């Protein structure tokens, strides 16, 4: 059974704190993704990674960074958390698709982050 796990289901942090969100997949997938989900805005891509130590900016990378030191682990870092980063954060992984397309993405359960 495929599995993507995220380190926390709920997280409460203070403004200015450094926040780490961890994601681990056990499917040997090359691609990993971080999204945030907000009411009325749907899912928006923050960062993604095609391989170890590789990262690409998504649609809303400002205020975030990522780390991928091992194939199975993709971390999202909020260097200095702000209240507008309160959101649901979803991690996903996938295999590379055929001829440059995108294959099925497998999602973790999400981390609901509140920044006070």
């Amino acid at each position: 059974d495929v599995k993507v796990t995220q380190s926390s289901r709920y997280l409460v942090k203070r403004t200015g704190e450094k926040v780490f969100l961890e994601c681990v997949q056990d499917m040997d997938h090359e691609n990993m993704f971080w999204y945030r989900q907000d009411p009325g805005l749907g899912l928006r891509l923050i960062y993604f990674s095609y391989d170890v130590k590789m990262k690409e900016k998504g649609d809303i990378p400002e205020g975030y960074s990522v780390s991928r030191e091992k194939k199975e682990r993709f971390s999202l870092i909020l260097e200095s958390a702000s209240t507008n980063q309160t959101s649901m954060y979803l991690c996903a992984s996938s295999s590379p698709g055929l001829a440059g397309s995108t294959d099925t993405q497998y999602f973790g359960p999400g981390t609901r982050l509140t920044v006070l």
Partner: protein
Amino acid sequence: SQQGEEDPQALSIQEGENATMNCSYKTSINNLQWYRQNSGRGLVHLILIRSNEREKHSGRLRVTLDTSKKSSSLLITASRAADTASYFCATDTSYGKLTFGQGTILTVHP
């Protein structure tokens, strides 16, 4: 603006009825995917339809794709209360990335 936009935003039906959700998009695609999200949880993949396919079935799910109209529909037949969830379409327009719509909230009343 969103690449994929679902319609309607919310749908309320009785158990046993069919539910149809639509998705429109703006640019050419490699494939289109549908996902389901139960309240407060991660997304679960339902179906992937490639740009050269017109229709695909999976159990009670039927997806159509019309690339000339840049639209797709998801039909759930004989709906059940357990189908209550948000449904998202996602388009694959560039390598490795999906763009999600805002979703349709489906409520199935027992």
